[in-house]
């Protein structure tokens, strides 16, 4: 029973697929199992992972947000410009604080339209995505800043620890991965153990029921979009730091990949379902897939195709399973022929 329940979960399926994929790739190219490759994977997963946690929370609540990439690049670029103009020479922490505050502000704009006017979340965030990006390019700047402040430049080398392999190459695990860990734990605790988190699930399950139960929907929605804004600001800043530059044209365009990874991890696009673990697994699957296609000698141009196929299969399997379960429940009720009085 327990095993059956475990196997009916999308998380388990994704985990098994991921594990199988690792074995296959490692068998084709042993480089896969080196510390250097895994540090690379962790680095690639960090920004997508933080974005995906934000997307997860929005999806659970029954909404969809496509503006987080615009918020991320807006926060990252603006922060860099501000601190460069201020000739700031201190550490990276201030970059994060400012980027998070900008993210918060932009997230609140989303929250305002969504909670106050009850507009469809996709429409609002499509609009704000264009708005934030346009404002950034037109008002703040569009040139690539390569001459970044020293604190940000140093961040690209902020390794947690380094390892020197047998060929004498030194590789390190970047500390940015701690952000992902912290965000994941925070989101997990909020979603699982706070009434605020449960109100997000409740809202995604049935808005009407949530209202009738007395949940403060406005507050929940403000939290959701503000939180996503903050996460986007931080993730954007990490992205800029890792790449040692601030490019106002970056990041926007990744939002659908992030949403797809989240859905792959078991979050329902219809709302009400999704977990942090599943989301992390979904992100890892996509990251391992696209990073490793190179290791397997598959041309980079094919990567998009393969990622697309994985996403379709990954989302089709649970959908088909739900369909089959529904058919079954129409045809054969489990209590059929058994006396009804057992229940009352």
């Amino acid at each position, binding site marked *: 029973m327990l095993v059956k329940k475990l196997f009916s979960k999308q998380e388990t399926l994704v985990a098994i697929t991921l594990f199988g994929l690792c074995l296959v790739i490692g068998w084709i190219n042993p480089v896969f199992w080196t510390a250097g490759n895994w540090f690379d994977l962790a680095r690639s997963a960090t920004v997508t992972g933080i974005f995906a946690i934000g997307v997860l929370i929005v999806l659970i609540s029954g909404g969809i947000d496509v503006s987080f990439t615009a918020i991320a690049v807006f926060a990252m670029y603006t922060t860099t410009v501000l601190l460069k103009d201020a000739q700031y020479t201190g550490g990276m922490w201030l970059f994060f604080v400012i980027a998070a505050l900008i993210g918060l502000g932009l997230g609140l704009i989303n929250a305002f339209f969504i909670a106050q006017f009850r507009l469809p979340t996709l429409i609002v965030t499509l609009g704000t995505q264009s708005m934030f990006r346009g404002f950034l390019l037109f008002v703040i700047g569009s040139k690539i800043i390569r001459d970044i402040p020293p604190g940000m430049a140093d961040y690209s080398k902020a390794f947690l620890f380094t390892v020197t392999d047998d060929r004498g190459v030194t590789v390190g695990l970047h500390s940015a991965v701690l952000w992902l860990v912290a965000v994941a734990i925070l989101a997990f605790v909020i979603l699982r153990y706070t009434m605020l988190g449960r109100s997000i699930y409740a809202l995604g*399950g049935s808005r009407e029921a949530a209202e009738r139960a007395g949940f403060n929907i406005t507050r929940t929605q403000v939290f959701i979009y503000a939180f996503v804004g903050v996460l986007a600001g931080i993730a954007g800043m990490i992205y800029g730091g890792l790449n040692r530059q601030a490019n106002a044209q970056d990041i926007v365009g990744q939002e659908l990949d992030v949403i797809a990874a989240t859905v792959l991890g078991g979050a329902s696009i219809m709302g009400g379902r999704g977990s942090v673990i599943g989301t992390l697994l979904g992100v890892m699957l996509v990251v391992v897939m696209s990073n490793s296609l190179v290791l397997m000698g598959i041309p980079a141009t094919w990567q998009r195709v393969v990622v697309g196929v994985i996403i379709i299969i990954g989302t089709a399997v649970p959908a088909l399973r739900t369909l089959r379960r529904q058919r079954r429940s129409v045809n054969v009720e489990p209590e059929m022929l058994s006396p009804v009085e057992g229940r009352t």
Partner: protein
Amino acid sequence: MQPFLSLAHISKTYAGVRALEDVSLTVYPGEIHCLVGENGSGKSTLIKIIAGVVQPDAGQIVINGKAMHHLHPIDAIREGIQVIYQDFSLFPNLTVAENIAINHELSRQKRWVNWQEVREIARQAMRKINVQLDLDATVGEIPVADKQLVAICRALLQNAKLIIMDEATTALTEREIRALFEVIHNVQREGVAVLFVSHKLDEVLEIADKALIIRNGRVVLDADARELDRSKLTYYMTGRNIEEAIFEWQGDPNSPPLLQVRHLTSLGSFEDVSFDLHPGEILGVTGLLGSGRTELALALFGAIPIDSGEIVLEGQPVVLRSIQDAVAHGIGYVPEDRLTEGLFLERSISDNILARILDALKGAGRLLDRASMKATTQEWIARLSIKPPHAELPAKSLSGGNQQRVVLAKWLASKPRLLILNGPTMGVDVGSKMELHEIIKQLAREGLGVIIISDDIPELMQTCNRILLMRRGRIVERFERRQITEMDLTQRLVAV
């Protein structure tokens, strides 16, 4: 004794339409008060006002001696008002345990969730009404009757002083209704008042201490239930006296049958079912939930597979492997749940009626012929007196009775030989119900074979000329309607 709730001179207007006018209601602790009225009479609005979901335009609300100026849902809940809505207001994505406990946790203004406590709270609530449910099951995947129990458990948890049940029995079988009434009486003994909203007259007469009848937003009667009987209730609800004629089949029992079912078996659902149906007959099939009645209907409609036995239609053996096969043989099926299975809720009356016969409406160049579409729609709106008679209105804007007419029209437009109706008047108010019965009888008189699946015994007694009783997948008794009384049949239905 101080009343728990008193409403005085409540009025409410929606977009120029008067939903309630000068309605007053007083509920004392431990009282079972029935709120009776047809669909659209203003019952739902009144409930929403008491729950704080809708604000009245005028009037006073006094709860526990406190005048409430702007009643919010959360205030109503804190004062002990619990509403069990018709759709139960549950969260389909959450577990049984969380659904039971979540409102309780919320009203205690908890910030953190203790899952041990959630399960314990749920377990205690289930113990109170003596039910057993799987705490970890996802609510979206459990049967309707269990959802109802979850909703009741949840309401009881909240130190409720007044529980409002909106059409609580619609989806329940006879036996489950008995169990529910038992629970309601237990609740009453605790000093909790119950406002029981219903349009099922027998229920009102059985359970109510007092009844408030509203029609078109106005109170027409506020009386002690002992002073009421069925005809009086009907009269006040509908504003007219309805005498329903019993259906008499005029055909020849020795004529060739329309449908012959021989030893039909679908393993796990029903076994060895045999019966005949003549053209123009209305055959009732009754039984409790799980008796196999719905599965039998679905098998005759090709929706579930048959393991053995034979179906003969007008002398020709037929094989029904799919719904398409059944439709091709002229079999129609009106499902139990018209909202999810019978209607395109967002689409117009016209689109719904024509959905089955679009192929027949192709004109020149294989395009749809607008004129004949319109004519066909108008014909059915007129024949079944669908109100309001505006073909472009979405199906969801109609009352239950009129929605059911649209479902009927959809099937009738394709001219079936055999029509299977599963719970044809579920959630339909009394006036509309009788009109639907008349329509069904008229169809039978025109030669259609009709099978009605229902556990509404008065309905079967009024519409059918023969009734089959199913139990655990088998037909256990067969009656000519003339040979049996309503009381007798009810007892046999519930008997183990």
